[in-house]
């Protein structure tokens, strides 16, 4: 260990492995089916033909945490659900990511009540938050693209939850990516 410590990132071979791994990881994110309330409907809508989350390589929703690497917490997390959510998160294999979708799971939303967890980041590390009540599918896609930016910065020496968004990534994103626009239905 002493020889390799701190030298991993400088090594040319390792960085190219990083590139291949990150490319593979970000291009096929398998989300976990984890709808908890009304936001789940928007999450389901984003898989339909109209919005088509498959364009971003994340259409394979898995019912088992063992096969998933993204937990989209879509909805109100009650205190009774909290331990279940934590357990499901711990059952997922590394590397894993978490998107907190909607006001409820980010900060408790309209439910400042005895029964609701005031923010899922109190029990699991969240990578990307989506605002909205509920967020439109485009909002979820934006978060997914943000997460892909984040995965791009991972390396074998850095665990995924240590990677945080950097300020200039927002500007790069604005230049590089057009968020899907859907004309309003008649």
């Amino acid at each position, binding site marked *: 260990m002493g020889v390799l410590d701190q030298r991993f990132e400088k090594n040319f071979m390792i960085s190219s492995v990083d590139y291949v791994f990150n490319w593979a990881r970000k291009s096929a994110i398998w989300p976990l089916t984890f709808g908890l309330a009304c936001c789940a409907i928007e999450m389901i809508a984003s898989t339909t033909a109209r919005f088509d989350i498959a364009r971003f390589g994340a259409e394979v929703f898995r019912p088992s945490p063992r096969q998933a690497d993204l937990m989209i917490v879509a909805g109100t997390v009650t*205190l*009774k659900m909290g331990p279940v959510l934590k357990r499901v998160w711990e059952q997922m294999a590394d590397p894993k990511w978490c998107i907190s979708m909607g006001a409820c799971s980010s900060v408790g939303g309209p439910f*400042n*009540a*005895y*029964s609701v967890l*005031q923010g899922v980041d109190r029990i699991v590390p969240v990578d990307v938050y989506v605002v909205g009540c509920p967020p439109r599918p485009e909002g979820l896609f934006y978060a997914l693209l943000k997460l892909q930016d984040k995965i791009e910065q991972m390396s074998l020496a850095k665990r995924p939850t240590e990677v945080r968004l950097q300020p200039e990534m927002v500007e790069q994103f604005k230049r590089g990516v057009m968020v899907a626009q859907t004309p309003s239905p008649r």
Partner: protein
Amino acid sequence: MTDKPADENPIIKKLRAWDGKMIAVTSEFRGELSLVLPPEQLARAAQCLRAAPGLQFDFLSDISAVDRFPIEPRFEVNYHLLSIPLRQTVRLRVWLPGQDPVVSTVVPVWPTANWHEREIFDLFGIRFDGHPDLHRILMPDDWEGYPLRKDYPVEGFRT
């Protein structure tokens, strides 16, 4: 328009004929009949209402509870009964004190009361004497307090 006494109602007459002292107060509001019973009479009255000819309330639609804090008696438990063969409804009501509210269970008469009573126990802390399996149904098992009581803060006791 206020509630008016309903002593002439045939359901009341049948119950009074069965046991004159059973019903404390009766009222009728827009065709809905309500009876207030002393809590200790509830189990007997339930059997009569279920089985007696002319009553036959074989369906318990709902049990609900009301907290009238700080008025005493504080709690009110309402039983909404429906008779499917005779197409009539009635509401039973018992008043319970704020200190140690207990009422006897109606599970032996209407088995559906099982979960209703557990829910009221969970959220209001009213105990149902003789209930086969009285523990929390909605809140986590280790929860403290009864969240739908009026003196329980809406946000709970957060640290």
